[in-house]
């Protein structure tokens, strides 16, 4: 049975950064991912990474923009940590080999991004996430002697000791179907968000809330789960993301009348207001009949105002995306976009060292909620979040490991439990045409979940819609218990993994809906048409969701305010 000081689940930016940090601190490290690390969804982050590296900039300014972007729900101590450590982290990445775009002097160039008071986004064309992820993977290859890699291993659950601490995880080797229990002094969850609970979403098919759900089932509280970011510029048909970098380079948003409608809601920042503000403005245009396209469901993003050479050099990926996925040459004509689910600000509640309330369990990146993003994440702050808190979690977990022995845990019990769970899925009766109530396919349940969330737990929400979503999710949860699958094999049985993922997504969705019902105000990404104002007196607090028995239980925790008192938010 494998034993490690630090077991990291998820190999995107947060996981890989945590692995490198823990290994550097001398720990025996393993990193596990259900896909090959470079397939992790961090690869799709396009626009860049924020850091106050310019001589004219100051991390306090970055921190204030982040606090304001969060609609004052972000914890300011955590935001201070992230923003003050950002410049050093970005330099460290540059030294590792990230090919950051340079200015004429040969220094790192910076581009403008939404909600930022100055240019502070370092970038590699519009493949920043990919460049960062691949460079970190280069480092993992370099440090192959100190970091064990379990690539294409699917984690099914966390192992808990008798005292309730986390002592490892159970996983299935996707290639062989072999189940294994891993004992670890510490586990770091770094397996991303839960975007696939929405349809459409910018997130990849692998982003199914595994880490959030596993921690939740282990008893860890989830925080800010109602805060779901809709990105303002996603392709109308597929939900594929067009980077905020496009607006950072100067692109305009236009309604059917050709008006730059952002003038109304953000006269100063215009297209570069916070994402929640821009998405709401777009949705209002669409809802009031000023959308573009055959059924007026879109908004024009006009990149033609950016010099063509600059577009080809710095926005090459979206030139290709426009051509290949929408049939539009964005250097010549506007492209149709709309808001689309993009990011979950909420997640497993952690402190600034990635610690969850469960001993031995850490979380970092989108799976976690520190909370640095509060009600709304600024563009180019997520890459930063993954790296800063991935590193801090890795360092802290390594230090903790050094002071303790390998935990004793009945790993076989966990192994048996998950083995039986998978056997039960494999044994599900497909029903067939003669079945009285034939069970639905996993894919059908997933589709209904996604469409429900995108309709009722989206940019605008109200009590009635949320209650209806809550009922739907509860019904789908029940149905998912017997959802049918076809594959009974062991090698690359994606069908059985899909059934497990569906359960993860439903847990995340339920927590999101419960929290959205609870928060009776409008703040950040949560806009309640029945409670359209922000209400600091009642709701300047985090909503925590904990699984008690089989039901989500709501509690509150305070928002940490250090130097920036809540004020009216204008862009």
């Amino acid at each position: 049975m494998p034993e490690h000081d630090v077991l990291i689940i998820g190999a995107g930016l947060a996981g890989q950064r945590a692995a490198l940090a823990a290994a550097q601190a001398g720990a025996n490290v393993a990193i596990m991912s259900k896909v090959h690390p470079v397939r992790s969804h961090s690869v799709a982050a396009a626009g860049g990474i924020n850091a106050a590296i310019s001589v004219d900039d100051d991390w306090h300014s970055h921190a204030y923009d982040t606090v304001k972007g969060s609609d004052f729900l972000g914890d300011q101590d955590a935001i201070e940590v992230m923003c003050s450590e950002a410049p050093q982290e970005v330099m460290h990445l540059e030294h590792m080999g990230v090919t950051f775009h340079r200015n004429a002097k040969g220094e790192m160039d910076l581009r403008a991004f939404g909600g930022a008071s100055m240019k502070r986004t370092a970038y590699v064309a519009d493949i920043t996430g990919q460049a960062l992820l691949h460079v970190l993977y280069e480092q993992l290859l370099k440090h192959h002697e100190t970091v064990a890699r379990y690539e294409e291993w699917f984690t099914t659950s966390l192992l808990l000791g008798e005292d309730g601490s986390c002592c490892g995880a159970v996983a299935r080797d996707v290639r062989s179907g072999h189940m294994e229990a891993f004992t670890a002094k510490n586990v770091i969850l770094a397996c991303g968000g839960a975007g696939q609970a929405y349809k459409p979403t910018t997130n990849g098919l692998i982003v199914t809330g595994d880490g959030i759900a596993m921690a939740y089932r282990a008893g860890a509280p989830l925080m800010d789960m109602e805060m779901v970011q809709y990105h303002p510029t996603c392709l109308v048909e597929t939900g594929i993301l067009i980077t905020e970098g496009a607006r950072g380079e100067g692109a305009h948003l236009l309604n059917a009348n050709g008006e730059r409608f952002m003038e109304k809601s953000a006269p100063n920042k215009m297209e570069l207001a916070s994402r929640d503000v821009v998405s709401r403005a777009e949705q209002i245009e669409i809802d009031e009949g000023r959308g573009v396209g055959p059924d007026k469901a879109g908004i024009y993003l006009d990149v033609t105002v950016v010099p063509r050479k600059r577009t080809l050099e710095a926005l090459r990926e979206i030139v290709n995306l426009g051509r290949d996925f929408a049939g539009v040459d964005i250097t010549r004509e506007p492209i149709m976009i709309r808001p689309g689910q993009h990011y979950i600000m909420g997640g497993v509640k952690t402190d600034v060292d990635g610690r969850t309330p469960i001993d031995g369990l850490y979380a970092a990146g989108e799976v976690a909620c520190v909370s640095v993003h509060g009600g709304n994440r600024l563009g180019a702050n997520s890459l930063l979040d993954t790296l800063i808190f991935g590193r801090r979690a890795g360092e802290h977990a390594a230090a903790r490991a050094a002071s303790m022995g390998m935990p004793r845990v009945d790993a076989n019990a966990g192994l048996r439990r998950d083995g039986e769970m998978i056997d039960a899925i494999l044994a599900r009766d497909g029903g067939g045409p003669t079945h009285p109530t034939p069970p639905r396919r996993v894919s059908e349940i997933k589709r209904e979940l996604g469409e429900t969330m995108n309709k009722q737990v989206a940019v605008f929400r109200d009590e009635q819609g949320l209650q209806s979503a809550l009922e739907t999710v509860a019904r789908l949860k029940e149905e998912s218990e017997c959802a049918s699958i076809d594959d009974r094999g062991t090698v690359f049985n994606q069908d059985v993994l899909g059934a497990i993922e569906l359960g993860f997504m439903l847990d995340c969705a339920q927590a999101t809906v419960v929290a959205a019902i609870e928060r009776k105000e409008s703040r950040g990404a949560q806009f309640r048409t029945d409670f359209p104002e922000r209400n600091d007196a009642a709701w300047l607090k985090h909503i925590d969701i904990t699984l008690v028995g089989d039901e989500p239980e709501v509690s509150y925790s305070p928002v940490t305010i250090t130097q920036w008192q809540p004020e009216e938010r204008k862009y």
Partner: protein
Amino acid sequence: MAEVHDRREGGVESFMLRLLRYDPESGQAPYWDEHTVQLEPHRSVLEAVLQAKDRFDGSIGIRCSCRQAICGSCGVRVNGEPALACHTHLDAAKASARDGVIEIEPMGNMPVIKDLIVDMDAVHWKKIQRVTPWLLAKQPVPEREYIVSKESMVDVTQTMACIQCGACVSDCLAMEVDPGFIGPAALAKAYRFVGDPRDAEHYERLNDLAQDPQGIFDCTHCFKCVQACPKDVNPMGQIMRLRRTATQDFHIVDQNNGERHEAAFATLIRNNGILWEAELIPRSYGGNSWFGKFAPAAGRELLSSVPTAIKGLLRRKMTLTGILRPHKIPSQDLKAVQSIYDKIESRPERYELNLYVVGEDEAPASSPEGEPAGAASGAEGSTS
């Protein structure tokens, strides 16, 4: 049908898919499996496979995630050609199908695990590890960023854009013949460091890859990888740049006669306008001059090629005069060829084609006045 995104009127059509399935646990050989899906023609082959998987047979195996050609998971062969499934439109795939049925198979040059899933670790990632795929940073490491030219970073960004999908590996003809060839993806990765001014070991990397019989001179210029790459990484172009840097900048003379062969090639074309094979062999082995043939290595190679030459003569593929005298082309054509050489060589720096650097072969559209504030430094940057 409840497709949320069926927004175009009457857009949905039927497409037939023919998937090459393989179940390693069945003990059976691979077999063809057909499904009909309903999608709009501009949707992707991946969406079609996923619809078949979602509706008809959940056991179809395919790696996929992002659906937007950035994660590199869904490399397959569509109608025999390597491609990302998510990056291939159904209408185009149908048009290129032999009988209207879109054929989808696993990639080549790598063992199949199940259905469309291949073992990339056994081939692709092993080769990536061969090229020391991490920065060997110049010392001392500066406190802030390394100061390097804008062009150098944009240049290596082209190879950084590789998503490790394996399409080029799937289609590499040299690797089919010589499975040990380091191959297009890994060598493109090598250029990412050789082209990076922050790397301290350009010479060591190049010497290693030049001296390796399965290194940069093992490529046969078939252009298959260039065509296969969904991200315009131009792997063969990167291999050629490694060769030019190794030979012209570092003057590495390799044991594979690669440097001499290229020099001989270029010289013979310049002199004659067309290749003179009989002179190419001795020069490649003995040195790039008429005297090359007297070197012992050239002699041995010439002797060993005598049977081939005799066969060629007997089959009238070669003539004796063709062997002994240079081939000729009309003098104005020769002049045209030589003017290409003059033009290229008169440039102060070697001309390297890189899409990120040169954009497209087209004058930029006139940029509008009154640029928004956000784009100011971008515009400066792009004109510098």
